[in-house]
């Protein structure tokens, strides 16, 4: 069985940051493996480890620049078997990749790899579209389930029994026929830390890099009717009273407030 995991390197914004043009200034960004994808990788690796016949291959796919290889190696160090990264000058030059472009790029790889199961994160922490996994499934013409926080696989029957986490503490119990794309929610497992041994091994695991031509696409993949026109810090809607001073002072201001409110009598 083959499990394909979509892995994104996401940008995290420093507390103090600058916007330059239509994006956060590069100097205010740090990069990391998307939190949701971390859970997806773990889920795939656990499937592989639980399989006694040692017959589960875990492949990660990333759309991203060379910098993203650090993140990809992290996924390999955690137990993925090999990795694919797609990038191209045409992708680097575009303002941002819209949903359609991401789905098309990932689908090109998935069609090549023909996985039985694709695991995606529910969303990417930086642009929180929350739509790529399902769009990918539709493009591939396979089944899917969004926001999965528990799954059990019956590979022989070709069914994944999943729990979809709905709002308000309600879970939906659903059977999904394979092949399928599942978008994985945080908390589904306990993502491991990469071991030193894993990190060493990851250096030797295959990481293939493809450009658009390699995956049978051309520059038109970035064409989009959607254009970003602005990015700004929102005007704070609230008017929070911020207590100033040393920790002792601010704690005392809060204590006074809590006494006044009658929260504590002392």
């Amino acid at each position, binding site marked *: 069985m083959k499990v394909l995991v979509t892995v994104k390197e996401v940008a*995290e*914004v420093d*507390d103090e*940051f600058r916007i330059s043009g*239509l994006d*956060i200034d590069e100097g205010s960004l740090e990069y990391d493996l998307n939190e949701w994808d971390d859970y997806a990788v773990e889920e795939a690796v656990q499937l592989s480890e639980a399989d006694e016949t040692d017959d589960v291959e875990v492949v990660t796919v990333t759309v991203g620049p060379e910098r993203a290889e650090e993140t990809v190696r992290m996924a390999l160090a955690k137990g993925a078997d090999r990795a694919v990264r797609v990038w191209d000058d045409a992708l680097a030059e575009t303002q941002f990749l*819209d*949903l359609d472009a991401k789905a098309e790029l990932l689908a090109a790889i998935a069609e090549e790899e023909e996985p039985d199961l694709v695991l995606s994160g529910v969303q990417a*922490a*930086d*642009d*929180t*579209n*929350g*739509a790529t996994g399902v*769009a990918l499934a539709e*493009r591939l013409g396979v*089944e*899917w*389930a*969004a*926001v999965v926080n528990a799954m059990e696989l019956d590979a022989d029957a070709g069914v994944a029994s999943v729990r*979809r986490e*709905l*709002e*308000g*503490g*309600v*879970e*939906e*119990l659903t059977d*999904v*026929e394979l092949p399928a794309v599942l978008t994985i929610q*945080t*908390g589904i497992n*306990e993502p491991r830390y990469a071991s030193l041994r894993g990190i060493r091994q990851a250096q030797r695991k295959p990481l293939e890099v493809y450009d658009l031509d390699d995956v049978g696409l051309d520059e038109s993949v970035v064409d989009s*009717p*959607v*254009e*970003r*026109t*602005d*990015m700004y*810090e929102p005007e704070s*809607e*609230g008017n*929070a009273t*911020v*207590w100033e001073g040393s*920790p002792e002072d*601010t*704690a*005392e201001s*809060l*204590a006074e*407030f*809590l006494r006044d409110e009658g*929260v*504590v009598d*002392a």
Partner: protein
Amino acid sequence: MSVLAVAEHRRGDLRDVSLELITAGRRLADATGGDLDVVVVGGDVDAFADRLDREGVDTVYTVDEGEEFNHEVYADAVEQLHAELEPTALVAPNSVNGLDYVPAVAERLDVPLITDVIDFEAGDGIEVTREQYGGKVETAYDVDADQYAVTIRPAEYPKAEASGDATVEAFDADVADDLGTTVNGFEEVGGGDVDITEADVLVSVGRGIEEEDNIPLIEELADTLGATLSSSRPIVDNGWLPKNRQVGQSGKVVTPDVYIAVGISGAVQHVAGMKGADTIVAINSDPSAPIYDIADYGIVDDLFEVVPELIEAFGGEAPDV
């Protein structure tokens, strides 16, 4: 232009977001004086249609297929109705179920999709506002297309209240009968000894606490204040506190007199569970954290410095963490 909005219901109840979509959808349709149609798929469609008949709705289409949400049924029905009505805008909730079928429908219809929209301006196409990077910035996008789809963030628009005089029409969708996805049931999770929804004062801990070993610091604060301990999601995901302590979209909705958020950024899914608190106090070292948009009081400082002082201010003793 015309607008087609897709209602959402679950286990017999129309969800509030359906009525919010009517407000948003009407606003969108008004921009050009077009129709707003609403479709409801599955369940007691006639009863739902009654409730969806709000001022500004032209036609409510009912698709009497199945009881509960199934994304294949929704995708088929919405795709077919869309083909018939050819609306400019397809509007759906940015909910867990919305995100389970709208991306597929948008792919099939080959229309651009923008999710989690918090504001928009319609003209030629549409300009939408969304949040990015954990709510630290907002971005505007111009969608230059004759037809497009948007999912609207819940609780951003008021519910449409006034009743209307919409036509109700059954729509006969041709739904695949061999469904590859079967919904077998539901389960409520997160019960247990403590009911955080009953608390008058909540001290809530977030990822700023860094490690499980530091949780006792916040526990001690809650004890000192006679408050109940709750948390954001990552704390529960990590197994540091049980699920019944989680505040937010997928946890509990709480409305205490005072909510003290310690090391919580204020992500939309968290805020969905606590914005109804009377007074919100935030302790967060990041002045640009979105929690400050809804906080009444704030301390922009290191929680590891502030919390021990606070415990001591009430004569308690802060544990060493």
